[in-house]
């Protein structure tokens, strides 16, 4: 039955021709027209930024979205043959971890020089592009003003049993928060805190979007997450409120989202262009206006969110979040948080 074989072969040929075309275009139009981004940010925020970059530069962006730690893992696995040019992470700890593993490329530019040193790696191998605070959001229909928790530590109070949304222990923002708490409270107290939190039966959710929606819809009373999720939920019309925790005591955790260029990036020039682009006024404003984050460049205002200068935060260097990453993960494993 020649027919079947020939049909198979033809489909195979045609199909591989299609894919071949794609890849040959990529190659022949050479490095200057393409940029591969691994992004741990949510697509609804990041796609407008990428579109703007494409319009402005004519560079075609291949955006590969996923969870920050998953992409970091992929980058480590692809060490010998990097697939991406730029990595956008939702956490300084993950970026510093990659820096320690020696997969990020030191980088300098005028804009990077202008950035406050506390917001970048010493060698510039990663830079912050926006900042966020850890907060507690609550459903205003379900929690009365006098009842509000004031501290992350209040979440172990049995009155909240089964009514708090938290992230999975693989979430980079959650891990960073625990690293910061270890920094000020020590390992023993932090471990006890995690155990008490766990025995309060929090609901571990897959993503921060799930948390804000669960609080917004009244499925849960409280949620432990990043500040901008409160604003996103509020602007969808949900009855939610925000608590900046521990303002009279320890302070809350401030973390960043940032960018790093990979060693061996195939489109290095475009990658540098993109990192600078993220630090530019226009995009800093987009972070503030589209996603209610805190801009890291001087002179760009927050929108609605509390300015960073007015938030009491735990005094910990961002690098520390990376150096202590594995220890925090081990502690969370020990407590056996989901």
């Amino acid at each position, binding site marked *: *039955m*020649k027919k*079947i*074989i020939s049909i*198979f072969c033809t*489909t*195979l040929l045609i*199909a591989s021709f*299609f*894919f071949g075309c794609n890849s040959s275009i990529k190659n022949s139009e050479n490095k200057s027209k393409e940029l*591969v981004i*691994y992004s741990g940010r*949510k*697509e*609804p925020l990041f796609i407008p930024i990428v579109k703007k970059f494409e319009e402005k530069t004519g560079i075609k962006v*291949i*955006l*590969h*979205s*996923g*969870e920050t*730690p*998953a992409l*970091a*893992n*992929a980058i*480590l*696995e*692809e060490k*010998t*043959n990097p*697939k991406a040019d730029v990595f956008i992470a939702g956490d300084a700890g993950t970026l510093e*971890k990659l820096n320690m593993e020696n997969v990020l490329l030191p980088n300098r530019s005028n804009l990077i020089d202008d950035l406050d040193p506390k917001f970048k790696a010493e060698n510039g191998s990663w830079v912050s592009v926006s900042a966020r605070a850890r907060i507690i959001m609550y*459903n205003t*229909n*379900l929690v009365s003003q006098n009842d509000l928790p004031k501290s992350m530590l209040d979440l172990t109070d049995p009155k909240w049993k089964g009514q708090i949304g938290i992230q*999975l*222990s*693989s*979430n980079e923002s959650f891990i960073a928060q625990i690293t910061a708490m270890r920094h000020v409270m020590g390992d023993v107290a932090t471990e006890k805190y995690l155990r008490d939190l766990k025995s309060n039966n929090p*609901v*571990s*959710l*897959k*993503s921060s*979007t*799930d948390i804000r*929606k*669960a609080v917004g*819809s*009244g*499925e*849960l*009373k409280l949620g432990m997450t990043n500040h901008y999720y409160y604003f996103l939920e509020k602007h969808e019309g949900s009855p939610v409120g925000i608590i900046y925790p521990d303002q009279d005591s320890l302070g809350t955790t401030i973390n960043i989202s940032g960018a790093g260029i990979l060693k061996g990036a195939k489109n290095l020039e475009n990658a540098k262009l993109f990192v600078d682009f993220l630090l530019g006024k226009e995009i800093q404003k987009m972070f503030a206006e589209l996603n209610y984050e805190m801009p890291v460049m001087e002179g760009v205002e927050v929108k609605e969110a509390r300015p960073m200068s007015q938030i009491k935060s735990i005094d910990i260097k961002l690098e520390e979040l990376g150096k202590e*990453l*594995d220890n925090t*993960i081990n502690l969370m*494993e020990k407590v*056996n948080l*989901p």
Partner: protein
Amino acid sequence: MKNQKHNNGTQALFRRTWSPFIKFSLLISLFSALPLIYILYQAAGASIESWSKLLKAKIPVLLFNTISLALVTAAIASIIAFTLAWLIIKTDLPFKKTFHWLAAMPLAIPVYIATFTYITILGPAGAIPKLISNILNITVLELKFNFIYSFMGVALIFSFFTYPYIYLLLCNSLKNIDGNLEDASISSGLKLRETFRKVILPLITPSIFSGSLLVIIYVMADFGAISMLRFESFTRVIYLQLIGRYDRASATILSSVLVLFIYIFLWIENYIRTRKTLYTSTNTQKSSKVYKLNKWKIPCLLLVLIIFTFTLFIPMATLIFWSAKGVFSGVLSINFFKYVTDSLLLSLITATVVTLIALPVSFVNTRYKNNLYKVISKLAYTGYALPGIITALGTIFIFNRFLPGLYKTLFCLIAAYVIKLLPQCLQSQENTLLQLSSYYEDTSLTLGYKPWTSLRKVTIPLMKGGIISGWVLVFINVTKELPATLLLRPPGFDTMAVRVWIDASEGIYTSASPIALLLIGMSMLTMKFLMKYK
């Protein structure tokens, strides 16, 4: 003795004639087992500390959760399957043909898609709890409608969409019951209930067990739906280990334990299936009896419709609702067509590659009676027992270790699919080959055909049905596959399944639903084709 000598002779001849085929099959079999072997090797090399930590804290809980969910799901699915199969095959229910179709269709709905529709309808803050709390004038928190995330909720959702595995087998054995046996039993004075217990039940039990074990294995391997339902199962924890931890020891250990248990269930399934042949007689002399429902006709009709409401109407109506909303608000972008064409092209290539690889393997597997070969060739079936997520883990290991240049390319993704889906393709090809005598090839060889020509001109045309249905099976399973694609796809390459997953995770149902509908539509067409073909 003489016979055996003769046999040895033909086998030697076979070995000489088909030697390149045999070598190729051995190679493919070994390749298929490579990821699992590498995972076991890594797990064996993990520190005693990580083993004992997991064995003490995580593994017992995970085993209990996963296996109890699988068993309860199988029990519920058996009840649904039996109700439908009995009413549709053994009674005079109207619209039987249509109902038979509808009863098999949930198989075309990937459970992770069905799950997100259920969450938007019956989740704690879904449409129905919202409606009820509005009427009662209370908040959804006070209503506390958490049923969907409870153990029974998860089991029910899984059983709604896996029961067809049992249903299809059950229909077959119910149809094959010899009407004479039933008549004899009734004329010797037994009531219908006793006839059922003493005659019918023993005949259909094997297919219920067989189908239940398929359901059990499905539940143990599922990743997408179980994560959405927040159920602490093996695959969910393995995925978290894979994406969130920087060492692979725990993931390999957990994978090894899960695969071990899947093998145990597979072994039981195999035992029952091979024993089953003792029970059923295929050359029925009188067709299976059909009982009259009389006054029960309307209630039974209602019961069937209620089942279909849960297994088809709710998910489909929800998807259509969200899709309509999405289309009118203009969510369908050019990107939509890119996912669809990328997805289809990938499925097309993979199905063709798997089919071509399977051809020589299935041929040798059915024709070559060498004991050593028989053992090694079983390895080609490894992928059947590997959940997608574990196939991905193994492929990541293998490619990073031996072929780093090809890691995260389409080649690497297709290799994972080959490992995972080759068994399905082999099975359907081998089934047809077993029904063909080797007489035709032998004759063509003695007439002077070269082996290749004989295969091309004689065997392949004869086994066309098996080849096509194998191809279609692989095609549709690539389109639906989630975890391996999620972990191995090249940067910027999204399939329909991946897109549905990402959008549904972010709660953007308006853009997830049109793709989901298209996916289900394709699966349904495929099923229609396969059911007709068989």
